[in-house]
């Protein structure tokens, strides 16, 4: 009896402990405990917990073993156990993300060349895969919660600030707003009247412009009909003849201008000579100067001139007395 009791107690104790140990192992690793240790480092792990699934291309290949913040505080190191036969891609990274909307997270091994985002943390240690964590729904709800708290704070402050004095001030502001509104409506009415006047002027101008446009159109039509008529060729012929005449006139004017230039040169030479004469006249020591300036000399010259005129008359009357022609000398 004693022996049987001992066996029973021993059996129950062993059974209970075995159930606890084996059950815990099974629930944790599912007896598929990977032998290959894999590490990743990320700035945050979100809601990842030890025991979370490790997946590769959607297939569960292991579980998260442990999670620890590095002593430097710069990253979180995640230890994983995965199946030993799994070949990790050369450019592999580990994405920590929610498995569903209900809070459970997973670590997914992926090829970073196929999945560019988000920025992975390249931890400078051999064998540590770059890791990154995606924000989850709980963070969004936490953010909304924070926003709600802030709104509550604001509403509390508004409630504190909104005293009777504030209400009176607000009433005054509303009254002022009413006055300003009346003024604004009056100004708007005036402006609207001005705009109406302006619109009338614009309308009148538009009508005038329309008349002008109609007149211009009529002129253009006439001009068009003129251009399309038979008299145009005659007009061009006359114009050509006129141009020819004009060219001839231009040639005549050119020759006339040459003659005028020569006449001007002669006039210029005459004026030079006259200037010489005038210079000589202005010289009091010269003959002409003395003639003009000295009355006696002028009278003498006048007398000589009379005598010379008488001599010429005598020569005309008696040329043989003074001149002798010989053909053969």
């Amino acid at each position, binding site marked *: 009896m004693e022996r049987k009791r001992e066996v029973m107690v021993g059996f129950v104790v062993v059974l209970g*402990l075995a159930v606890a140990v084996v059950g815990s192992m099974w629930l944790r690793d599912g007896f598929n405990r990977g032998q290959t240790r894999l590490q990743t480092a990320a700035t945050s792990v979100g809601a990842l917990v030890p025991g979370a699934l490790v997946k590769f291309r959607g297939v569960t290949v292991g579980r998260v073993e442990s999670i620890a913040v590095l002593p430097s505080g710069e990253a979180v190191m995640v230890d994983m156990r995965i199946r030993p036969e799994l070949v990790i891609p050369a450019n592999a990274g580990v994405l920590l993300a929610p498995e569903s909307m209900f809070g459970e997270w997973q670590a997914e091994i992926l090829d970073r060349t196929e999945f560019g985002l988000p920025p992975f943390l390249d931890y400078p240690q051999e064998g540590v895969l770059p890791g990154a964590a995606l924000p989850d729904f709980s963070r969004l709800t936490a953010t909304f919660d924070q926003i709600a708290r802030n709104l509550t704070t604001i509403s509390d402050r508004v409630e504190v600030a909104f005293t009777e004095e504030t209400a009176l001030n607000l009433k005054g502001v509303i009254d002022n707003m009413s006055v300003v509104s009346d003024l604004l409506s009056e100004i708007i009415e005036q402006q609207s009247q001005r705009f109406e006047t302006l619109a009338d002027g614009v309308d009148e101008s538009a009508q005038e412009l329309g008349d002008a446009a109609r007149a211009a159109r009529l002129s253009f039509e006439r001009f068009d009909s003129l251009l399309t008529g038979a008299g145009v060729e005659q007009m061009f012929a006359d114009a050509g003849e006129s141009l020819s005449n004009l060219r001839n006139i231009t040639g005549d004017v050119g020759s006339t201008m040459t003659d005028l230039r020569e006449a001007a040169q002669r006039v210029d030479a005459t004026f030079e000579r006259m200037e010489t004469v005038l210079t000589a006249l202005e010289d009091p020591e010269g003959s002409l100067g003395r003639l003009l300036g000295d009355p006696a000399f002028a009278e003498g010259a006048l007398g000589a001139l009379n005598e010379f005129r008488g001599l010429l008359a005598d020569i005309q009357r008696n040329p043989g007395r003074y001149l002798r022609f010989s053909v053969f000398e």
Partner: protein
Amino acid sequence: MFELLLRPFAAVGNLTLAGLGTMGRAWTLFSGAAASVRNTDIWTPHLVPQMARIGVASVPIALFIATFTGIVMSLQASYTLTGAIPLYFVGTLVGKTMILELGPVLTGLILAGRVGANISAELGTMRVTEQVDALETLAYDPLAYLVVPRVLAGVLMFPIVVLLAISIGILAGWFTALQLLEMSSSEFVKGLRLYFAPWDVWFAAIKSVSFGAVVTGSGCFYGLHTEGGAEGVGASTTRAVVVACMIIVCLDAFWAAVLL
């Protein structure tokens, strides 16, 4: 009139003195029992029989309760999680609840009734029939003979019974999910593993150890302090069970606050 005014104060004073007296007697008993542990030649022969009585004999009732708890948990979880929440959370709910709360506490309460009442009635009868006095007269340490093996048996066997109850409860919930909820095994196991942490099992075991000590200690204390005849035995038995249940619930909250 004056006496009427003093009556509430007298009641409070009596309760306080009674509480302090109980605490003092409990301290005397358990400190004496702790001191009696060194008398191994007295209590070791009785340890295995007590483990069989307290632990092995309690397994069927514990498993029975756990089985139906698991079934009810699975059904009620599926009823609650109808809609947007995936059904695999039935596994999560059954597993977490059975491991952390229902397994240890329900088993503790059931064993408080079965084991605590048994010990209290046995020791109370021994007390009122002066068998305990006879042991003292023979210079036989009654604490080493009566208290130590029972409390040690409770401390050792309660976790075993609770772990078995938890396992059976989860299996029952799993079976119910497969048969009645149109869930697959993979779904249930996924939910079961989702938030499982080995610490949960340790938490249940630690709670169970404390529950075992409370249930057996309460039975021993009220049994050894039984007064009167059969009526006194009944009263002490009732008191042992009620107090054990109250302490279990308080300890449950205490461990949850301290360990989780």
